[in-house]
């Protein structure tokens, strides 16, 4: 933005303003179109639906009215006309409904299609009922029945009555027997009653009755006719032509009555009135209810439609206003930005020029614009740079001048102060030289005294040296004695070690002997075990011997029993006995021998145990010996250690004494040197006194020279001050310009 040329910035501003205007216009058009659609919808569909509904309602009501008229009107033609007009009205109403349905389905508003469907259902029901009513109404059966009654039947009845009257008159005139007359009269009167009852009953039949009642009445009439017919013969008095006449009339009447009954049964007037009053009314009411509901819905629709269009209008207003504001805002922001990018740099250039006029060359303009204003600011910056550089150079030259003047001033001051100090020092030195000569004299006297003291020290140290020699020899002897002791102890120690080794050897041997004793014991145990086993065998042999003995006994018994024949066997028995005895003896022998061996074994075991015990004792005592030997060894080594230390101590003593002797020797030497030195000192002191006098005269010369130096220094100081003043003036002139430090270049 900052780098655009001024012309392009203004162009941008104009473009934004125009585009915002266009946007507003577009939005307005859009919103107005929305309003328009709502209004159109309202007019086209909602109003049309309302019209159709009301048309349907009107026609429906007209149809119902015509229906009622059809029911009420007594003659067929008017009924038929009314019926036709009712049907036509219903048809027109149906057409209106279907058109309404089309519109509703097109629109698809909530609830309306269901309401229309319900309306259609109700309407169809109403139409059906209406048709029922009309079908009945046009028949007018009751009226017709009444007509028959009042017409044909009345005529017939009257005829019959006339005839009966004739017969009555006839019978009166004829003058038959009383009984016959009476009978005829009675019959005639009964017939008259019956004849009169017939129209009465028929009239009753026409009224609204149940089927059973109607059947009963018909039966009654039939009865009457029967009675009439049955009484006819008697009543007529034998007149066949009048009889047949009456019979013809009766059959005519029967026909009329049949027709009457048929018509009366149909009872269409009553029924149609009934239907018209109740079901038809209900259906009509239902239809009206639905129609009003639909009208409500349509009213709601039109209401909502008008609300929508109002809302659309309101939203359109808001949109337009909003867009307008947005455009204004955007244009305002861009205008502001453009203005800023132009005016701010111009102000900065102005400020810079003013500062430079006031003498402040430090500030620069920090603009990064590429347009005309930016170029202007760059040029101003470069002007300030060159001016500040020139001023900086002048400042530097003036500062150099000022510093040189200062230096000169400093040097002259220094010179002045130094010359003053020099003259002061010269005075102090003179006084010090006098003091020095007096001190030297004092020193000479002291040196004399010192030499006397030194001689006495020298003799004392010689004596000390002799004593130290005696001590040294004694120490040497002690040292040699201690060494002898040490060696003896070492020998003891080594002999103890030998003893220890021997004892250990002995212990080992004892251990071996013990082990061997144990093994011997074990072997003897084995031997003893073997002895036991042999004993067992011996027992077995004894048993065998016993058995053999028994065998021999039995054999002898048998042999003796056998007598002579058994003598050979007796020999055998004898031999067996001998064998048994020998076996027994042998077994006993073995047993005895075993016994002996076991005894010896036991003795041997005893001996071995004794030996073992002795070995253990030996082991124990060798252990004890070993312990005590160790103790002795430790003691000997401790003695050795102590002796070593004593030796060392004695050695130290010897060394120290040697050193003391050496020190004593040194000391006597030093004392001799000190005596020599004292003599030198007194000599030197004399020479120093001489030198002090020379120094004093030199110092006076120095003092004169320094005074003259002082005078020249003050002159130099005055000139330096003049120079300094000039430098300061120049600096003040240049100091009015303020510049940056980086512009000051070093030369």
């Amino acid at each position, binding site marked *: 933005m900052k780098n655009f040329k001024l012309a392009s910035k203004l162009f941008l501003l104009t473009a934004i303003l125009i585009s915002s205007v266009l946007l507003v216009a577009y939005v307005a058009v859009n919103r107005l179109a929305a309003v328009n659609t709502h209004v159109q919808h309202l007019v086209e569909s909602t109003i049309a639906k309302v019209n159709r509904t009301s048309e349907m309602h009107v026609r429906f009501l007209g149809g119902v009215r015509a229906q009622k008229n059809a029911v009420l009107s007594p003659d067929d033609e008017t009924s038929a006309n009314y019926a036709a007009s009712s049907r036509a009205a219903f048809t027109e109403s149906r057409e209106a409904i279907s058109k309404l349905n089309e519109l509703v389905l097109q629109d698809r508003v909530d609830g309306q299609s269901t309401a229309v469907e319900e309306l259609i259902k109700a309407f169809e029901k109403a139409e059906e009922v209406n048709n029922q009513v009309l079908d009945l109404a046009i028949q007018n059966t009751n009226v017709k029945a009444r007509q028959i009654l009042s017409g044909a039947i009345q005529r017939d009845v009257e005829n019959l009555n006339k005839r009966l009257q004739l017969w009555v008159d006839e019978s009166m005139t004829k003058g038959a027997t009383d009984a016959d007359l009476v009978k005829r009269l009675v019959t005639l009167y009964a017939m008259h009653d019956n004849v009169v009852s017939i129209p009465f009953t028929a009239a009753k039949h026409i009224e609204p009755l149940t089927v059973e009642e109607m059947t009963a009445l018909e039966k009654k009439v039939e009865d009457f006719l029967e009675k009439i017919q049955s009484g006819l013969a008697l009543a007529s008095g034998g007149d066949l032509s009048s009889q047949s006449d009456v019979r013809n009339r009766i059959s005519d009447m029967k026909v009329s009555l049949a027709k009457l009954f048929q018509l009366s049964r149909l009872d269409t007037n009553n029924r149609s009135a009934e239907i018209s009053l109740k079901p038809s009314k209900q259906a009509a009411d239902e239809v009206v209810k639905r129609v009003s509901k639909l009208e409500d819905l349509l009213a709601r629709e039109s209401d909502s439609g008008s609300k929508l269009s109002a809302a659309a209008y309101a939203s359109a207003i808001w949109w337009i206003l909003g867009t307008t504001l947005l455009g204004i805002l955007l244009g305002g922001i861009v205008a502001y930005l453009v203005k800023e990018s132009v005016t701010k740099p111009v102000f900065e250039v102005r400020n810079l020029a003013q500062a430079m006029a006031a003498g402040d060359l430090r500030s620069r303009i920090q603009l990064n614009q590429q347009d005309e204003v930016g170029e202007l600011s760059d040029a101003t910056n470069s002007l300030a740079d060159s001016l500040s550089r020139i001023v900086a150079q002048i400042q530097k030259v003036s500062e150099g001048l000022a510093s040189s003047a200062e230096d000169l001033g400093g040097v002259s001051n220094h010179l002045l102060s130094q010359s003053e100090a020099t003259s002061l020092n010269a005075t102090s030195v003179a006084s010090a030289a006098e003091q020095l000569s007096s001190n030297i004299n004092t020193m000479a006297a002291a040196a004399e005294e010192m030499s006397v003291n030194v001689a006495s020290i020298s003799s004392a140290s010689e004596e000390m040296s002799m004593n130290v020699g005696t001590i040294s020899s004694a120490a040497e002897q002690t040292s040699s004695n201690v060494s002898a002791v040490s060696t003896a102890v070492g020998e003891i120690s080594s002999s103890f070690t030998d003893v220890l080794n021997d004892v250990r050897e002995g212990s080992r041997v004892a251990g071996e002997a013990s082990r061997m004793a144990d093994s011997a014991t074990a072997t003897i145990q084995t031997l003893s075990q073997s002895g036991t086993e042999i004993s067992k065998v011996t027992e077995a042999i004894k048993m065998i011997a016993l058995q053999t003995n028994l065998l021999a006994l*039995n054999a*002898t*018994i048998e042999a*003796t*029993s056998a007598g002579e024949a058994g003598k050979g066997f007796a020999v055998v028995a004898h031999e067996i006995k001998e064998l048994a005895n020998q076996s027994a003896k042998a077994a006993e022998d073995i047993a005895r021998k075993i016994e002996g061996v076991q005894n010896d074994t036991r003795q041997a075991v005893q001996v071995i145990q004794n030996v073992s015990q002795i070995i253990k004792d030996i082991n124990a005592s060798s252990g004890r010996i070993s312990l005590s030997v160790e103790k002795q060894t430790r003691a000997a080594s401790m003695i050795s250690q102590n002796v070593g230390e004593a030796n060392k101590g004695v050695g130290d003593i010897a060394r120290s004494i040697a050193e003391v002797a050496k020190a004593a020797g040194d000391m006597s030497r030093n004392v001799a040197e000190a005596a020599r030195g004292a003599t030198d000192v007194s000599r030197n002191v004399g020479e120093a006194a001489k030198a002090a006098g020379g120094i004093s005269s030199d110092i006076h010369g120095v003092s004169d020279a320094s005074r003259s130096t002082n005078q020249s220094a003050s002159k130099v100081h005055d000139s330096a001050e003049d120079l300094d003043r000039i430098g300061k003036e120049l600096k003040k002139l240049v100091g009015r310009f303020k510049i940056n430090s980086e512009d000051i270049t070093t030369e």
Partner: protein
Amino acid sequence: MKASPLENPRLFCSFRVEGKLYGVDILDVKEVTTEMMYTRIAHAPDEVLGLVNIRGHIHLALDLRRLLGLPPIPVTGESRLVLFKPIAGHSFGVVVDSISEIHTITPDRLETFSLAEPASLATQLGQVDLISAIGKLADELLVVLNPRRFLTIVEQNLTRAT
């Protein structure tokens, strides 16, 4: 009791009871055995130890100690059963403490006993029926018993008891 001083030397099967040496004529002895499994007889006298089965034959076993009037002792490993031949008595034997040897004794060294000497010590002892002779050995006396009397003694004792 067969006293025969002029016959050949007789052999006696000797055994010990209570340490004393007794014997019987070997011609009376059938066998000496170690079998000691008796089957006791109920209600039998004490002298009858029971029945013994020897190789299928049943013998009666008597306790010699009781027969001699000594207290009985339990059977030991030394105890032997001496079975007699039928001539001495039918199928019986006696149990003795231990068996000794077969001694041959010449008649001159045998002293017989007889009932004709009522004042002898043996009679007073009440064993006169059992003992038939005394034999003199080198260092001991051998009391010769009469086995035929054993069963009779038992019967006597039985009848005396009942």
